[in-house]
């Protein structure tokens, strides 16, 4: 199978899934509809409207991790091609990536020492 065919299959799978969901919804609708009653559409807060608005800004208390995560996630983009040719390249590959990972790990240790790895 060519690459293009494979991705066409994946696209077909996605569309088929959407079709499946739509047919489940159609089936449920054919069984019956919701009766319009007052206060039925209030979100789950013990039957009353929420005191505070929900769509507001939240404090991401894990932002220290999140910043480190960005660095590590970028590093993974380099790791995959490296992993595939690792055995071909041999010791050179181990040393190259070893230095890279050591620097990154030192960064993690530094962040840890500065208190990045805790809930702020």
């Amino acid at each position: 199978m060519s690459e293009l065919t494979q991705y066409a299959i994946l696209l077909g799978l996605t569309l088929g899934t959407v079709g499946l969901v739509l047919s489940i919804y159609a089936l449920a609708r054919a069984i019956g509809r919701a009766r319009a009653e007052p206060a039925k559409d209030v979100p789950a807060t013990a039957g009353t409207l929420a005191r505070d608005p929900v769509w507001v800004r939240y404090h991401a208390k894990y932002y220290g991790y999140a910043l480190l995560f960005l660095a590590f996630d970028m590093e993974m983009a380099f790791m995959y091609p490296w992993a595939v040719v690792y055995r071909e390249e041999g010791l050179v590959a181990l040393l190259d990536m070893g230095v890279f990972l050591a620097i990154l790990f030192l960064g993690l240790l530094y962040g840890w020492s500065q208190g990045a790895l805790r809930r702020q």
Partner: protein
Amino acid sequence: MSIAVIILALAIGCYAVAVLEGWAVHGRLSLTRPATSALALLGREQILPRTSDRLFFEVGPVLLLVAGLLSVAVIPLAPGLIITDLAIGALFLNAALAYVLVALIMAGWGPNGAYGMVGGWRFLGQFIAYAMLIVMPITAVAMRAESLSTTQIVLSQAALWNIAYQPIGFVLFVIAAMGVAWLPPIDLPTGGGDLAGGVEAEYTGARLAVLRLARLVIIVALAGATVTFYLGGWLGPWLPGWVWTALKTLAVAAGMLALGSRLPRLREAKYLELSWKLGITLALANIFLVGVIALVVPI
């Protein structure tokens, strides 16, 4: 042909996992419970919460199901029995699973309800904890197989399964997989008894059925991925390949569910701390160890 077979196998797997989950949660083994509860969900009213973000609310469960199915597409059931044998299969699995986060944030944000919102944001924290521990062990697996193709990864384990070759990676991957599928004890987005259902709180009827189905698909996909990466996929004596894959996948799913039913829920802060202080260190050590072994031993 193979697509139909795999979709059928996936449907059976989902049902089996639903039965197992009922057993783990309620302590009673019932073969008909998933069918009756699915029918009950279809018969229930579908309520759209007031002032909801309709687009996010509707797209969330569908995107979750699409993410689950796309990750199943690269998991081989037997030699040649795979939906798409992509050359970058393992990477594609990661990419598909990344949308689990997007879908859950959408499902949490959409209904404009406090519990859903808290569940969605908690999952973002959970994502930052598990994400690295999914990709780093897979890197070590790819180093041994010299390929990202899932079929090649299974074939590379002919002499020795990866669970013996890189046990640290296996443990890290299983724990991270439990995080992706928000299985207990890391079920922060739904948090039974804590958040009134969390992201599931505002979903009713058929939409909730789709959301739960999507989660079952994701559990099967992750158990299948564990089998492919660490337990030798279809490799095994006497029985045909697909039986081995099916048995191993169900065993891994049952193991994850059994583990979860015996542990108290982990707080998000604790999970982040464990993942980054212990998990990342172990994952890097795993990559280094596998690197040394792969250069010294030819298997």
